[in-house]
C-alpha cells in the first residue's frame, strides 16, 4: 500500500512538473523535503532523549505498569494481542493522554516508546506492522483532542473575541474520527487476517 502511494506521489509529481513546464522545481523540492526530514529528526533528539529518561524512571518506579493495570478493561478490548499489564499499555495510555491534552511534544516520545514495546511483542516479520501497532496508530491519529493548543494561539493572535469557542466543535469532530478509527481498524484487521 505505502509502496503505491509513495511511487504515485513521486511519479505523478515529476510528470505534472514536466507537463506544466517547470521541471526545475522537482530537484529543489526533493532536497527541501530531505532537509525538512533531517531537521525534524534533529529537533526530536532533545525531546525524545528527555522523555525517554523520565519514562525510564516511571517504569523503574512501577508507574507504567500501574497505569496499564488501571485501564486494563478498555485496553484488553482494543489490544487483545498484548499481554495484560504489559509496559506497552502504560506507554500507549500516556501517549493518548498527552494527545488528548494537546501536548504534542510529550506525546511523540511516549508513542515511540509504545512502538518499541509493541515491536518487542512482534513475533512475525520485524519489518511488518502488527495488529496492535495498527490499532495504536489508528487511535493515535484519530485521537480525541480536548485542547487544540496551536490553533487557539493563532486565533488569539488574529484578535478572536473568543479563541476557545472552537473547543466544543473540535471535541465533537475528533470523537467522530476516533469512533470511525476504532471501527475501521477492527474491520480491516478482520479482512486482512482472512486474506493473509
Amino acid at each position: 500500500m505505502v509502496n503505491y502511494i509513495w511511487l504515485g506521489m513521486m511519479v505523478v509529481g515529476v510528470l505534472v512538473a514536466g507537463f506544466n513546464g517547470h521541471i526545475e522545481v522537482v530537484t529543489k523540492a526533493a532536497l527541501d523535503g530531505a532537509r525538512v526530514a533531517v531537521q525534524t529528526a534533529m529537533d526530536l533528539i532533545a525531546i525524545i532523549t528527555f522523555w525517554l529518561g523520565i519514562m525510564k524512571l516511571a517504569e523503574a518506579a512501577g508507574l507504567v505498569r500501574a497505569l496499564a493495570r488501571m485501564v486494563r478493561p478498555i485496553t484488553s478490548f482494543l489490544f487483545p494481542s498484548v499481554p495484560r499489564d504489559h509496559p506497552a499499555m502504560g506507554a500507549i495510555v500516556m501517549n493518548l493522554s498527552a494527545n488528548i491534552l494537546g501536548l504534542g511534544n510529550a506525546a511523540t516520545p511516549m508513542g515511540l516508546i509504545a512502538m518499541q514495546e509493541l515491536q518487542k511483542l512482534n513475533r512475525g516479520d520485524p519489518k511488518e506492522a502488527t495488529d496492535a501497532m495498527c490499532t495504536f496508530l489508528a487511535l493515535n491519529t484519530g485521537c480525541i483532542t480536548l485542547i487544540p493548543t496551536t490553533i487557539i494561539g493563532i486565533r488569539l493572535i488574529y484578535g478572536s473575541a473568543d479563541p476557545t469557542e472552537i473547543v466544543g466543535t473540535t471535541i465533537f469532530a475528533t470523537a467522530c474520527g476516533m469512533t470511525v478509527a476504532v471501527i475501521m481498524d477492527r474491520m480491516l484487521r478482520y479482512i486482512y487476517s482472512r486474506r493473509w
Partner: protein
Amino acid sequence: MFGIVSDLSRWAIPVVLLLVPLIAMIRGVNVFEKFVEGAEDGFSTAIKTIPYLVAMLVAISVFRASGALDIVTGVCSPVLDKVGVPAEVLPHAVMRPLSGGAALGIATDIIKTHGPDSFIGRLISTMQGSSDTTFYVLTLYFGSVGISRYRYSIISGLSADFTTLIASVYVAHKLFGPI
C-alpha cells in the same frame, strides 16, 4: 469547564516531572542513574527515523511543489462541495494528512483573511484543531522501530481523517451557521 481542562493541560507535565522522580526515589530507584540509562537511547531512536522521514517527506514535497496536489484538490472539490465543504478550506483538507506545516500555514492564512470569528475562520480552526498529520505520524512511528510495511494503517488513518473533516463541517454548520 474549559478553564479546568486548560489548567489540566498546563499542569500535566510539571506534575509528571514532580511526581515521577519523587515516587521513583521513594521506591528506591537510583533516579539520576536510571534517567541517564533511559535517555541513552534518545539519540539513536531519533536518528533511526531519518531514512523513513526523508523518503516520505521527499515524495510529499515533490508532489506538492509540482502542482500535482492542486490537481488533486481540483478533482476532489466537486465531491467535497456536495457535502458542504466550502471551497476556501479545500486545500487545507487535502494538505492536512500530508504536511502539518503547510496545513497550518493555510489555516493561518484563512484566519488572517476571513477573521477568526467568521464562519470560515471557525470552520478552519475546528478542522486544524481536530486533525493530525497522518502520513508523518505513521512514517515516524513505524520508522522508529524499522517497520516499512504498514498493512492497513493508511486506510484506517485516512478514513478517520475524512470522518473528522465531515464532522467538522457538519458541527460548524450546526453551531456557527454559514454566513
